[in-house]
């Protein structure tokens, strides 16, 4: 058995980097700061690759036995009760190891890329500090061996996301976006927390291993329905999924994600494309046995539908966006919807194809989506704008970007042999087996994806040449290198026999492509691409004409289905302006008013009775005798 204790250093290295950068408080030189960040990540990446190598390699090839879930480290961090301690620990299983690789790799790329992208920015050290903090938190989240630890890092991830979105804190839109991101996810986390409370109360443990164990406290019992025809466990899982949906920007908790694009683009690549936003998927996958078995997978149904709807809505919204990053953001949402959908359609069967497919997609998506974002970053870096309408015919100016971007677009559209094709195809296969309508949505979305991605691609790199204030040029090696690296992965990742490593039951599975399905999905992708090509490869009036002819429908989409407005209404009008102001008013006027009234009444009373002391000695005598006689009368009548 290999000793995996060094796994602790994987999250710890970025944390150290964060401490160094954070405590030096911007006094550190930019170059040193960047170096610290990158170096820590290089080490962490190396460690995690080593770990993955030895973990997966331990079994050798061709084995038929499950990967062991290891807990090399575990200590009680805070003892809630003797039976319910809050532990910190490391859980190594295929899922976490895979995530470890994804997170460190993408993070490393982003760290390197940022050296160029963020060069000369104010708060460069702060940026790297936050980036390190995020990486630490994400790694901690991935390695968590119990649900409370997950929650711990879940929140940390959220806050580092907040800090990074709000990195340009003097930009009001960035501040608003950061706030929105934090508050929406916080709201979702409320569900998560309550879910944890319910789950742990009935299960008596936080530990994933125990929760997922077939003979554990959750799965060995039949939970009687108590509410709405479902058991409490179901509701707990649903609440936990609420947290997952919030982090993963699932409908209807997705509204923060497009706005989060206010953060620096590398941040979007890392957090809002590759890693943090898939934490929800990761969480559901973590608790997959529970989701699968409690109430016969009823919660999983919800997951599937939420994923499907999110995928569809996001894809639709992505078609009309004019901000390059927003298109990518919606695309992210859509793809995560895919992943959720895939998890949701994993039926209780032995091979649970959807589970593997989902995580495979997570894996591939992380790379090509961060590639897309970094490419977008390159463009923004060159043009200083996000607006598609100010772009065009950039393929000559930005060749590296162009080619890598194209690779990524093809990958996401599901064109073989790029990685996205394989994972997406598995998802569709899984969905088809399970639920027709979900499959149909997935299939349709595949076409939409191809369409809007290539809309993006053609608009940027083809189309009309614009008046650029200065000639666009690409960044240095530190920006190009990550692009190249990610593109490389995108090219080859599809051929990884993912099912060999990651599967619902831990056993290796071999998945074969179903060429019938693959063919049709390639077909719809091609249709999408061609449509986009027709509309956008050269400048035409047609797209706007179509938009105009769709009228209200178009507006509906453009206004993001008015979901943001509903939220704004609830948050601003109801929470702050009605309840908040109401409570404030109530407190000032009723509660405080009552106290003041008591005080003032006493004083008034005092003023009112002062006159009794009239200065007339006879009045005093009257009172005196009256008092004496009153006493007498009182006792006469009483006895």
């Amino acid at each position, binding site marked *: 058995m290999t000793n995996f204790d060094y796994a602790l250093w994987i999250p710890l290295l970025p944390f150290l980097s964060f401490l160094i950068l954070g405590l030096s408080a911007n006094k550190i030189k930019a170059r040193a700061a960047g170096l610290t960040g990158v170096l820590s990540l290089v080490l962490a990446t190396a460690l995690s690759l080593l770990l993955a190598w030895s973990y997966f390699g331990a079994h050798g090839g061709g084995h038929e036995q499950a990967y062991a879930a290891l807990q090399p480290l575990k200590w009680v961090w805070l003892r809630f009760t003797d039976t319910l301690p809050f532990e910190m620990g490391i859980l190594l299983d295929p899922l976490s190891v895979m995530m470890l690789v994804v997170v460190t790799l993408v993070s490393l790329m982003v760290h390197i890329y940022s050296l160029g992208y963020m060069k000369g920015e104010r708060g460069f050290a702060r940026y790297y500090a936050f980036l390190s903090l995020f990486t630490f938190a994400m790694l901690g989240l991935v390695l968590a061996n119990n649900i409370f630890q997950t929650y711990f890092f879940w929140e940390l991830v959220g806050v580092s996301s907040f800090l990074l979105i709000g990195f340009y804190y003097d930009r009001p839109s960035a501040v608003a976006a950061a706030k929105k991101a934090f508050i929406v996810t916080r709201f979702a986390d409320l569900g998560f927390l309550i879910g944890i409370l319910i789950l742990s109360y009935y299960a008596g443990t936080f530990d994933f291993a125990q929760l997922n164990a077939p003979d554990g406290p959750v799965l060995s019992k039949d939970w009687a329905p108590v509410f709405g025809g479902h058991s409490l466990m179901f509701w707990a899982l649903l609440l936990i999924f609420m947290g997952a949906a919030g982090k993963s920007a699932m409908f209807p908790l997705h509204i923060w994600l497009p706005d989060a694009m206010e953060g620096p683009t590398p941040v979007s690549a890392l957090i809002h494309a590759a890693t943090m936003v898939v934490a929800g998927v990761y969480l559901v996958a973590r608790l997959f046995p529970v989701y699968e078995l409690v109430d016969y997978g009823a919660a999983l149904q919800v997951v599937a539908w939420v994923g499907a709807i999110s995928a569809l809505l996001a894809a639709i919204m992505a078609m009309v966006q004019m901000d390059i990053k927003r298109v990518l953001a919606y695309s992210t949402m859509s793809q995560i919807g895919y992943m959720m959908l895939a998890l949701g359609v994993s039926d209780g069967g032995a091979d649970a194809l959807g589970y593997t497919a989902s995580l495979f997609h997570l894996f591939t998506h992380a790379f090509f989506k961060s590639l897309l974002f970094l490419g977008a970053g390159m463009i923004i870096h060159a043009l200083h704008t996000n607006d598609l309408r100010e772009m065009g015919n950039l393929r000559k100016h930005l060749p590296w970007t162009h080619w890598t971007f194209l690779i990524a677009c093809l990958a996401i559209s599901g064109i073989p042999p790029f990685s996205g094709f394989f994972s997406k195809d598995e998802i569709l296969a899984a969905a088809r087996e399970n639920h027709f309508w979900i499959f149909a949505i997935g299939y349709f979305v595949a076409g939409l994806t191809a369409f809007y991605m290539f809309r993006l691609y053609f608009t940027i790199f083809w189309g009309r040449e614009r008046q650029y204030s200065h000639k666009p040029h690409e960044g240095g090696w530190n920006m190009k290198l990550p692009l190249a690296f990610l593109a490389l992965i995108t090219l080859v990742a599809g051929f990884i026999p993912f099912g060999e490593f990651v599967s619902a039951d831990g056993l290796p599975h071999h998945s074969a492509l179903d060429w019938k399905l693959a063919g049709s999905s390639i077909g719809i992708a091609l249709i999408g691409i061609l449509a986009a090509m027709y509309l956008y490869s050269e400048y035409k009036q047609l797209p706007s004409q179509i938009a105009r002819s769709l009228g209200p429908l178009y507006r509906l989409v453009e206004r993001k289905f008015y979901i943001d407005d509903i939220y704004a209404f609830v948050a601003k009008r109801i929470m702050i302006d009605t309840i908040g102001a109401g409570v404030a008013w109530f407190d000032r006027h009723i509660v405080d008013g009552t106290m003041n009234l008591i005080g003032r009444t*006493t*004083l008034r*009373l*005092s*003023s009112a*009775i*002062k006159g*009794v*002391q009239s*200065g007339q*000695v006879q*009045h*005093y*005598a009257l*009172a*005196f*005798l*009256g*008092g*004496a006689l009153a*006493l*007498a009368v009182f*006792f*006469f009548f009483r*006895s």
Partner: protein
Amino acid sequence: MDWQKLILMRDELSLTVLLLLLLVLEIAMDSRRKHQLPTIALALFALHTALGFLPLASGHLFGGMFHTTPMLQLMKSILNIGLLLVLLQAHAYVRSEWVGRERITEFYFLLFSSLLGAYFMISAGDFLMFYLGLELASLPVAALAAYELSRQRSAEAGIKLVLSAALASGVLLLGISFLYATGGSMYFEDLQKGLSPNVLSVLGFLFFFSGLSFKISLVPFHFWTADVYEGAPISVTSYLSVVSKGAAVFVLGILLVQLFPLYADIWREILVVIAILTMTLGNLFALRQTNMKRFLAFSSIAQAGFILLGLLAGDSRGMTAVLYFVLIYAFSNLAAFGVVQAIALHTGKETMSEYEGLYRSNPRLSLVMLLAMFSLAGVPPVAGFFGKFFLFMSAAGAGYYGLVLVAVINVVISLYYYLLVIRAMFLRKSEQPIAHFVSDLPMRISLVLCVAGILFLGLYSPVYEWVLGLVL
């Protein structure tokens, strides 16, 4: 009669000697040296006070008309301390134009004879002695209240006091006559055996109680208090609020337990009602006062209401609480009056708003006032807290939790107006603050004594144990 037993009357005799000595001095002394008289009187009285602390046996004299016990002795000592402080504070006042050189002796003479009256009232073994003590205690004070001849307010205070007091003693006497009719004796010892609750004796008791309540300023028998306190010279007001009231409280406590044990159900009920009325109305009246003397008058009314809580239980612990409280109250209240007097004497200012910014010009005086207010309000760690706490404790011990709650809420109300004084002195700043001044030595001594009392009487528990030991 065994004349050697007259030693039991040590304090009365000593004070009488003092009185006579004053008369002799008045006659014998050169009028140019009259200004030394206050010092002499003070020294003599200090001697007398010290004498009072010497142990003395219990016993009775004159066929039971006079009796003394260590507890009564202690009560007299407490009154002595009160008067001693008053004298210290009056030292500068009596030599001011308000009194005039040729009336100094009389001032002391009247104060001492009033104290003598209080002694007899406390030590009385029958109604006659009690009545005479009462009158001896109050009539000279009426003259003292009117002492500032050129001020209408002073005369007004005097006439109000004398008329009200006479009416009160009339009612009290009517009550005594009814009690006498049913109980068959004026001697407490015999009367107690003869008394049992019936229509006439209850009426007598109620009249008697009302008359005595007048002296303690219990609501609704309190109306004279504020006017008299305001109009009288401050020394006299101090005397009234501490010594007169203290004596009356003591007597009430003694008589309720010794003479009216069979009426306990009745007087408990009355005390509850009157205590609530007194505390509450005293407080309500005090809330909006601006004149410091008048303000302190109402405050002392409210304090009297609190004292009643100690009488309720009717046991030694309650009596101890009362004695202890009065002792503390004497120090606290006289500290307040001392400051008021010092300021009035130097600046003629008596209004609360004129005290604004006092701390910045006269920090020490303000600190004394602060302590006094805190002690009166019953805030730890000063003595007033302990005094009140033990009063409440004794009432709670007798089961009067509701009353205690009312009382403590009243403490909070009272805190409001005590804080008003502190607010004026500490929080506010003034355009024309009272200029810095230094009081005369006796005043400063008295204030130091008061502060020492306020600070240590509570914390130093042997005092309480000592009082308890004497009461038992």
